[in-house]
């Protein structure tokens, strides 16, 4: 039955052939090596973060009364909860590492040069967004480390001339780190940043499809 359904779909949309042509048999320059995988690995980690993040959303409650309790529940009581959280944690850390390797490869190969300047620009913006993901996500467990790390983080922009004080207050949602800080970091982390990331990723990917991978040295 499965074969018949897949055949019915394929006879209408020709998915198998276009998958073969556009993915499996997609031409790449000779002598590309494993360092060209770092961008793809970063994307894989982003997908892992989306999936495990949605899993965590089923249990996490972004309020100062319950955030730590729910994280404790996920970690110690929920079957496989610690595993989901661990994948989220390690994928987040590895994502930064692989972005670094990806950028290093692009830099060394000179792949950011004409005509790929906009790939680099969107890439750098994506890197900034990922750092924002890390910063906002770090607060959510609402433990001592989260609180003090965020305190240091939000006070840093305070040294920006003129508007620094406002940026700090905007990030904290007022004069101190509390209920409003947690909920706005949560909103940024699970709604705003994922959508912005998706938009920039689509641009990043369309450009590489259009221009192709830069030839190796």
């Amino acid at each position, binding site marked *: 039955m499965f074969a018949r359904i897949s055949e019915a779909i394929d006879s209408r949309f020709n998915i198998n052939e276009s998958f073969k042509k556009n993915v499996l048999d997609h031409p790449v320059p000779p002598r590309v090596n494993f360092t060209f995988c770092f961008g793809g690995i970063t994307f894989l980690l982003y997908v892992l973060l989306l999936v*495990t993040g949605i899993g965590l959303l089923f249990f996490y409650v972004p309020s100062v009364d319950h955030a730590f*309790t729910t994280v404790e529940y996920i970690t110690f009581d929920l079957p496989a909860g610690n595993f989901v959280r661990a994948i989220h944690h390690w994928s987040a850390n590895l994502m930064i590492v692989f972005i670094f390797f990806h950028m290093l490869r692009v830099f060394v190969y000179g792949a950011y040069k004409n005509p790929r300047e906009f790939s680099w620009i969107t890439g750098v913006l994506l890197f900034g967004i990922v750092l924002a993901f890390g910063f906002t996500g770090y607060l959510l467990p609402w433990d001592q480390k989260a609180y003090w790390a965020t305190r240091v983080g939000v006070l840093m922009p305070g040294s920006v001339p003129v508007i620094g004080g406002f940026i700090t207050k905007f990030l904290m949602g007022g004069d101190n780190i509390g209920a409003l800080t947690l909920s706005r970091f949560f909103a940024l982390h699970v709604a705003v940043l994922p959508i912005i990331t998706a938009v920039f990723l689509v641009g990043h990917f369309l450009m590489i499809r259009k221009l192709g991978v830069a030839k190796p040295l």
Partner: protein
Amino acid sequence: MSNQDQCQSDSRRKFLAAGIGVISGVISVGVGGVVLTSIGAPAVTNKREGKWVEAGSAADLKPGEFNQLSISYDAKDGWLEAKIKQLVYVKVTGDDILALSATCSHLGCNVGYDEKTGGFKCPCHSGIYDATGKNISGPPPRPLDRLDAKIEDGKLKINTATKEE
């Protein structure tokens, strides 16, 4: 490219395509399985456990008729220590204590005591029970749950676990 080369290259392509498929499958099933396990687990592990709850002084109960009591007790509700409230009807006849859960066996509304018939009526879909809790008309598929009850040191105690009828 000779025929043999073409053939080699084809089988290599097939091998790589299969490899990509297997690796993608393992990652999807692995991560998906772990996430779905944690999402689904509370359906099995987050149980309401029966415990003995004090429901007031036995002397306050009117003998021979149904007394409507609201019992509340602490229970674990996922990550929360929650107060659970439950409505029960208790009738003491001599040494015999009949404790019925007010939860309708149809869709879980609280049934009300009907003074005219001496039985119970559910306000949601007009399920009717008689004075023993037996379902006599309307949609309820089975009688009201009976709860274990006892009187100790003049206090009425009710077990929140429902007995299988």
